[in-house]
């Protein structure tokens, strides 16, 4: 059987349209064609289905990549089941929809300046899903549009510049998705729909970076000024390197980075805590939910630094202060869910692999180290203020997840091509965030000593691990430790104290 010809509806094609829009014009351009004919399996219509999908796919391939950068977001399946679709009535009247409408932070249509709604003004029903679209006979949202007036005339004065600017802006954030997917399994931002104007990761930072370029586009959203540091790095095309390609996953410079960040953290603690306070680095196998709920006091600075230290040093130097095969796992389980800082050697941009220059690798690694510390602080602060909280949660890290994800750096790429790429990176001023968080904590030396005595007294080590006295380690020793001159073995160092 010869497959039917299906129209694409090119007359209703406009720049930066979404999949939803593409399907709608397919529906409008093929009146009377049922959903089942297009998408459901049947021996008779299989040809049609393939034919149709081929058309959609080929169309997207032809036009999608050039004028619709958001086409990489596969919204079709999602919108087909999604109930809460945002849309502009004027755009819907002409069969146009853009993925930007799905961003919660967009409140008005950038083309018509009218508020986005979740219902069609003509039939007063929620905007249809892809499936509903076929059967809804409404010129505002369904399988037809009004054609009385000249369609092309209606759009003659519509300026897509605002859409273009916002698309670029979102694309910058999409790039971050790809980059940050190296950080965690669920990269930030998990979905642009979840981004709100009142959070740090709102792309208003681009307004700070490019105030003129994005000024028009951002008229349609609220702006949240955030101080950011901007840096530019170069990317060189390469194949995607695997761990086996990278001989040393944590090269020597990572040690310098860890020392730098550690020094920064200790300085910041000094600024907020008591001057004579010494930070003890310890393991927390014997300290967890039970101890917290019975009111055992703890030093939040030392806890945060210890967890951070264990996390960042255990893998690169192959040492660990966790006896995860026994004892408490409240903190261990918790911070295993936190991002694991490691050097970023290359990234994917538009399906091309790029090698990142050394400066970028150092920058991103240090940012990750700082972020990890912030993550730990935001988890520890609630526990410090209300230890009973530990009773109600399974893992301490869930206390700060939201904040953790907010504080990732935002990166924006341009000049994307096969040969060369430039990454513009915008980093929130993490030191000021750390300082702000530390000011929430009020600890004192007595409390710290008491805490460490408790840990020492109740230390339940495995039989093969001998008890060791506390060890004070200076920054110089820490540097030696980092550079491999001084290796710690598991059974030798249950304690480290850095000052």
């Amino acid at each position, binding site marked *: 059987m010869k497959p039917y*010809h299906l*129209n694409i509806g090119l007359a209703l094609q406009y720049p930066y349209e979404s999949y939803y829009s593409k399907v709608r014009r397919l529906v409008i*351009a093929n009146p*009377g064609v049922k959903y089942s004919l297009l998408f459901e399996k049947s021996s008779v219509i299989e040809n049609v289905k393939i034919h149709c999908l081929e058309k959609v796919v080929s169309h997207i391939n032809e036009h999608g990549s050039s004028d619709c950068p958001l086409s990489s977001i596969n919204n079709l399946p999602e919108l087909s089941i999604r109930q809460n679709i945002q849309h502009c009535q004027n755009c819907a009247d002409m069969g146009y929809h853009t993925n930007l409408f799905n961003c919660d932070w967009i409140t008005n249509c950038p083309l018509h300046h009218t508020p986005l709604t979740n219902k069609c003004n003509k039939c007063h029903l929620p905007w249809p899903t892809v499936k509903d679209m076929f059967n809804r006979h409404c010129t505002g949202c369904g399988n037809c549009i009004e*054609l*009385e007036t000249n369609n092309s005339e209606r759009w003659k004065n519509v300026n897509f510049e605002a859409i273009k600017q916002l698309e670029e802006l979102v694309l910058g954030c999409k790039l971050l998705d790809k980059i940050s997917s190296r950080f965690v399994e669920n990269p930030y931002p998990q979905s642009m729909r979840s981004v709100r104007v009142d959070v740090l990761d709102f792309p208003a930072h681009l307004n700070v970076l490019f105030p003129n370029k994005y000024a028009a586009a951002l008229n349609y959203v609220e702006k949240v000024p955030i101080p950011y540091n901007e840096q530019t790095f170069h990317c060189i095309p390469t194949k995607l390197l695997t761990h086996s390609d990278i001989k040393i996953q944590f090269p020597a410079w990572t040690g310098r980075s860890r020392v730098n960040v550690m020094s920064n953290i200790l300085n910041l603690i000094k600024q907020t805590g008591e001057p004579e306070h010494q930070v003890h680095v310890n393991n927390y196998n014997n300290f967890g939910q039970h101890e917290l709920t019975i009111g055992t006091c703890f030093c939040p600075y030392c806890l945060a630094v210890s967890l951070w230290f264990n996390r960042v040093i255990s893998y690169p130097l192959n040492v660990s202060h966790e006896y995860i095969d026994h004892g408490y796992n409240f903190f261990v389980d918790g911070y295993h869910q936190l991002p694991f800082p490691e050097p970023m050697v290359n990234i994917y941009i538009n399906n091309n692999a790029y090698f990142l220059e050394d400066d970028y690798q150092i920058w991103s690694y240090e940012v990750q180290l700082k972020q990890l510390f912030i993550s730990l602080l935001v988890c520890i602060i609630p526990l410090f203020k209300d230890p009973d909280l530990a009773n109600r949660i399974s893992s301490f890290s869930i206390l700060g997840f939201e904040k953790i994800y907010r504080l990732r750096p935002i990166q924006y790429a341009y000049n994307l091509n096969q040969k060369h790429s430039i990454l513009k990176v915008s980093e929130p001023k993490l030191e000021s965030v750390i300082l702000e968080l530390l000011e929430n904590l009020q600890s004192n030396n007595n409390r710290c000593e008491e805490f460490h005595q408790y840990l020492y007294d109740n230390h339940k080590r495995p039989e093969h691990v001998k008890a060791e006295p506390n060890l004070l380690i200076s920054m110089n020793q820490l540097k030696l430790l980092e550079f491999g001159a001084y290796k710690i073995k598991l059974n030798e160092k249950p304690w480290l104290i850095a000052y």
Partner: protein
Amino acid sequence: MKTNDDSYYNHPVFDSLKFRIETRQIIKLNNVITQWLWTGATGGYIQGISRVGKSSAFEVIRNTLKTRSKAPVPTHILSIPRRDKSSISTIFKNCCFSANLVVKRHQTADDLKNNFAHYLVDIALSYNVRQFVLLVDEMQRLKAFQFDAFAELYDVMRSLGVSLVVIFIGNTYESDPLIEEIKNPRFDHIRGRFFSQKSTFTGLESAEDVKFCLEQYDTLKYPSPDGPTYTQFFLPQAYEIGWRFADQYKVLWSVFRKYQKVLKLPSWGMQYFSCTANILLSDYLSQSVEAFCSEEMIEKCIDLSGLHTSQIDLSVP
């Protein structure tokens, strides 16, 4: 090539569907339609006697139409079948069938119309032009009210940003009553759109027309582009010594003139001409090395072309 060779009979001369030669009338028709396109006409109609080669002419020119900026203008040929039931809906249904679009029982006339309109608009926009030419063949089979279907189609396409030019093609005598009916004031809206422009398509009218056609036998090649010319294919030895089919135009025309006078023919219809020339070339001239073309041979070929038989009734006083 030997006549017992299978590929010998693949030659376009033996296949009326593949055989296409240009005539001076086709060039003239092309100019007329191009003029309509360039002057913003919304349509027109072409009349010609039956078997004169109107449909073939449109097959030839459909891919050659261009805008003023030399961009190709897409076309679609719609042939109207004779049906018991004449309605606007059947026109749209026929349109959709011709484009292989989905046609279901539940679809309304509006559905079918919009479906076909989007089909034409998609093609026009994929050509990056805002014009589309719809060629409607056998217009004599239409009822006057069915022209409304094309007016509606024109309106829908206009609202989608593409201007439709509808060109109707019909047999002279059969479509005359329809043209007369359209002149009624109640069809003003149809007449203004589609019947303000008119042209007549004729067959070969002079010896020069015959020469123009025969010259193409001496230049067109099969297999294209490196094969022998049509003349060379059938008469290789004669062609080598300089024999050309085009040189026979006078004798061909003089023989036809005899028939023309007897049968009172306005022109030599392309179907009969091409049939005559093909038989003459492939079956008669190819039999002798010298390719001598006699009047008797040509008469035989004209008889075989069916010209005489088709005009019998007209020739009887």
